[in-house]
């Protein structure tokens, strides 16, 4: 695969800067990468690492103000410096791109068919066609991406589901038959089952047409399953590159190792998830040294002083670690312990008193014909100190259930008791009961970016929670410092405002605010789904620590089964507002409901059989 005749893309020293307010920020720094005809490469990295910018620069699609330097030869054209005229011949014909969000990728005012037709018309062989012929071609191409209903061509994008839209997007992207498809997180916004379908579709088309593909994702498992080779990016710089299976088996860069390690395993529960310390750095001016040095266990002073670039380390692999030779064995050993990390059984005490009991609970939004049933006949129990996970795909009613338990929504039917308080009474509850309820049940929201009042400092937010606790008659009110300490933040954070905090830190504060009331039940609604893997692991560990220390009960809402495995004693699986399966966390090993099986099936796995067609690929 090293013959130059088959080389499609060769990027060397790609650097992307943004001039803003008089200072130049380097967002992508000296990226090297190459791609052969018919090959699929993956670029992985946490959010903000510069993946999207890098590939957009290849089509000169950077937003205004960005400049890209370096060299990028695509079929013999330097696409970084080519004129707009030349680029018009590159875009669509040489390379085309699929974007992350299917909901914004299509022109909302244009019918689906038109999206394809307008690109088809650009190509000589289609321009000659008559109208009906072209319409037939549009339908044929929609069929290719699995849309067999011809009426779809006449619909508007907003009338389609996310998966359908992404299929249309793919069809439109492929309509010009480009040699290279760039897929920028094509499945991140989709649920697991649809993600699997779309990835399978992309891979199969790519193989059939012998196209090349760059797949961007932040999910290592997806990259390993779908790509021949994988590049790992961190904070604007390339850290490591290599063939999928090798990289997944033997990372040669501390960051790759950390990333692999923080991925919670689906098949066993770890006592503690391995974490990368610290948080993603914010992008600043160009700096020398390894960008990962701050967070690296193996860093030595030289790491911060010498310029590092991706360097080959033998057959088709490359690493940007200065000490790659010295620490190689260390990394291998560490990886071994991660792979076979200590397993911890789920603990549960089925004799503990019941604190939440729902019996035949239903919840409807709205009235009459527009009513939506979010929960139907749900029964659920939570015992003191128990960790209960609520799983299900998007729209299955998980959030609704959680909100009912804290009184943000009211139950429409059924019996619901929380700490012996009948919460179906809603606003008719006596004041004392409301206070008891509030002080015992607290909630952590999914989006850490808007769950803190932006106008209040962290200290004010936490102090206010303490004030509430005192109001409710709590005698052991925690001070702001104590709360910060409990969630692993330094006391100095009290003076900051939310905007000066990273997502992970905000989520810690939100958890702290809830804990300030010394609740007995904490409801966490997807508390980690907006966070990067390295931070996700930290927050999950924090929650487990708190549980161990305080014996608090947890209702953990998530759609990620691997996370369920890490936190839950008992699992409830929701489908369209109904509980379809319930039991201890072991049901993940032997699900009985078809729905649960389907959910498990769709969880990305590095192993080769996850994306069905992959097994047939021949490796030379």
């Amino acid at each position, binding site marked *: 695969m090293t013959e130059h005749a088959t080389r499609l893309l060769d990027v060397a020293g790609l650097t992307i800067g943004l001039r803003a307010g008089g200072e130049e920020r380097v967002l992508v720094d000296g990226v090297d990468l190459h791609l052969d005809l018919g090959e699929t490469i993956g670029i992985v990295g946490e959010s903000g690492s510069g993946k999207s910018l890098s590939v957009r620069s290849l089509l000169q699609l950077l937003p205004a103000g960005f400049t890209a330097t370096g060299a990028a030869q695509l079929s013999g054209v330097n696409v970084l410096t080519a004129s707009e005229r030349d680029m018009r011949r590159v875009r669509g014909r040489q390379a085309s791109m699929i974007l992350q969000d299917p909901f*914004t990728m299509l022109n909302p005012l244009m019918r689906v068919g038109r999206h394809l037709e307008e690109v088809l018309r650009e190509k000589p062989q289609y321009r000659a066609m008559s109208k009906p012929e072209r319409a037939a071609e549009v339908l044929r191409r929609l069929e290719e991406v699995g849309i067999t209903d011809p009426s779809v061509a006449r619909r508007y994008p907003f009338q389609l589901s996310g998966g359908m839209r992404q299929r249309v997007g793919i069809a439109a992207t492929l309509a010009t038959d480009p040699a290279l498809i760039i897929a920028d997180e094509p499945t991140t916004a989709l649920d697991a089952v649809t993600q699997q379908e779309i990835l399978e579709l992309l891979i199969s088309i790519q193989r059939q047409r012998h196209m090349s593909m760059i797949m961007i994702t932040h999910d290592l498992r997806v990259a390993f399953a779908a790509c021949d080779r994988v590049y790992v990016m961190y904070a604007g710089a390339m850290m490591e590159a290599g063939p999928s299976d090798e990289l997944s088996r033997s990372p040669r860069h501390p960051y790759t190792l950390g990333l692999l390690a923080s991925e919670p395993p689906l098949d066993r529960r770890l006592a503690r998830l391995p974490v990368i310390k610290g948080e993603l750095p914010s992008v600043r001016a160009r700096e020398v040294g390894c960008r990962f040095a701050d967070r690296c266990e193996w860093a030595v002073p030289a790491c911060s002083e010498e310029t590092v670039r991706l360097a080959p380390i033998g057959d088709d692999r490359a690493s940007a670690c200065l000490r790659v030779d010295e620490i190689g064995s260390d990394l291998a050993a560490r990886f071994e312990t991660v792979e076979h990390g200590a397993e911890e059984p789920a603990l549960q005490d089925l004799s503990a008193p019941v604190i939440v009991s729902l019996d035949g609970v239903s919840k409807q939004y709205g009235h009459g014909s527009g009513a939506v049933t979010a929960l139907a006949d749900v029964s659920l129990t939570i015992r003191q100190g128990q960790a209960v996970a609520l799983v299900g795909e998007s729209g299955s009613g998980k959030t609704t259930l959680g909100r009912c338990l804290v009184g943000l929504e009211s139950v429409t039917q059924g019996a619901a008791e929380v700490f012996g308080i009948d919460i179906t009474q809603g606003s008719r509850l006596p004041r004392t009961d409301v206070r008891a309820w509030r002080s015992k049940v607290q909630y952590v929201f999914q989006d850490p970016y808007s769950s803190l009042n932006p106008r209040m400092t962290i200290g004010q937010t936490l102090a206010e929670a303490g004030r509430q606790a005192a109001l409710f008659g709590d005698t052991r009110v925690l001070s702001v410092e104590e709360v910060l300490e409990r969630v692993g933040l330094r006391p100095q954070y009290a003076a900051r405002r939310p905007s000066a905090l990273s997502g992970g830190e905000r989520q810690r504060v939100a958890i702290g605010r809830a804990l300030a009331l010394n609740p007995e039940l904490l409801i966490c609604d997807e508390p980690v789904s907006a966070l990067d893997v390295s931070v996700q692991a930290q927050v999950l560990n924090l929650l487990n620590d708190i549980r161990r220390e305080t014996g608090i009960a947890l209702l953990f809402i998530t759609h990620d089964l691997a996370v369920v495995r890490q936190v839950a004693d008992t699992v409830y699986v929701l489908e369209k507002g109904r509980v379809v399966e319930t039991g201890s966390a072991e049901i993940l090993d032997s699900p009985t409901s078809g729905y649960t099986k389907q959910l498990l099936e769709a969880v990305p796995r590095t192993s080769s059989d996850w994306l069905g067609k992959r097994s047939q690929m021949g490796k030379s």
Partner: protein
Amino acid sequence: MTLRSTLRYVLGRLAGAAVLLVVYSFGIYSLLALAPGDPVRLLLGNLPATPETMDAIRARYNLDDPFFVQYWNWLTDALHLDLGQSVLTGQDVSSAIMERAGVTVQLGLLTFLITMGLGIPLGMLAGLRRGRFADRLVSQLAMFSVSAPSFAVGILLIIVFAGQLNWLPSIGAGEGGADRFRHLVLPAVALSTATIALVVRYTRTAVIEVAGQDYIIAARARGVKPSRLLFNYVLRNSLVPVITAAGVVLSFVMVGAVVVEATFALPGLGSLLVSAVQQKDLPIVQGVTLVIAATVFLINLVTDLAYLAVDPRIAVDGASR
């Protein structure tokens, strides 16, 4: 949105507007009844206003009924499209309005054309060249003119173009097509300073917003032609907010005309209203305000219908609204 639901929607809106107009007319009627000053006194001219004469006049012009009866009579007549007669001239209010509407409508249309014709292209230019010189220039100008009151601008225009340069007539409406046009240029320019700025800002924002959307990037990546991108993607998608601007502009022009007509001594609806207000010619005041209010309602309705035509998404939401 089906034709039927569109129709139902339009009828619903019209019914709502009708209720509002009734409430509105009642408000103005009461205001006029409560206000000091009496139109009868004007009807008398130089006659001594003895109680007998006043009564005789009131009887002659049906001004002697109790307030609610008067209002009720007015309302029932208005429902038959009879807005009554001017107290002072006996002229049908509707014909007085028709007489004056011409100038106002022409002024409005000219202003609208200038506004849209300049505002949209300038807004697009600024939006597409965001942050560059053209953008900064246009945005600064817009910032300046959006807040300039039309009558003050009008006075300055008169001084410069009619007084100093003597290019255009300063006042009056002129007669015939070309002459009328010459007379309406300055008023229309005065009226459109603020509205152009409004349209520029709306358009610029819309274009910037749309140009940053994923579907534009995706389309460029697919190699969609630049001309198609500009018209089918950027322009069409920017149109929705621009329609809002168009609606705002039209209603603004209807109302702003009142002041501009005073500035340029144009015999339009606005000056009719102002003089009627001063003379307490109640039927005229009622008639003109209602016509203007109804026009504003209609403009809003048409704007909303234009959204339906432009944006299929709203069509569906609108139906279930």
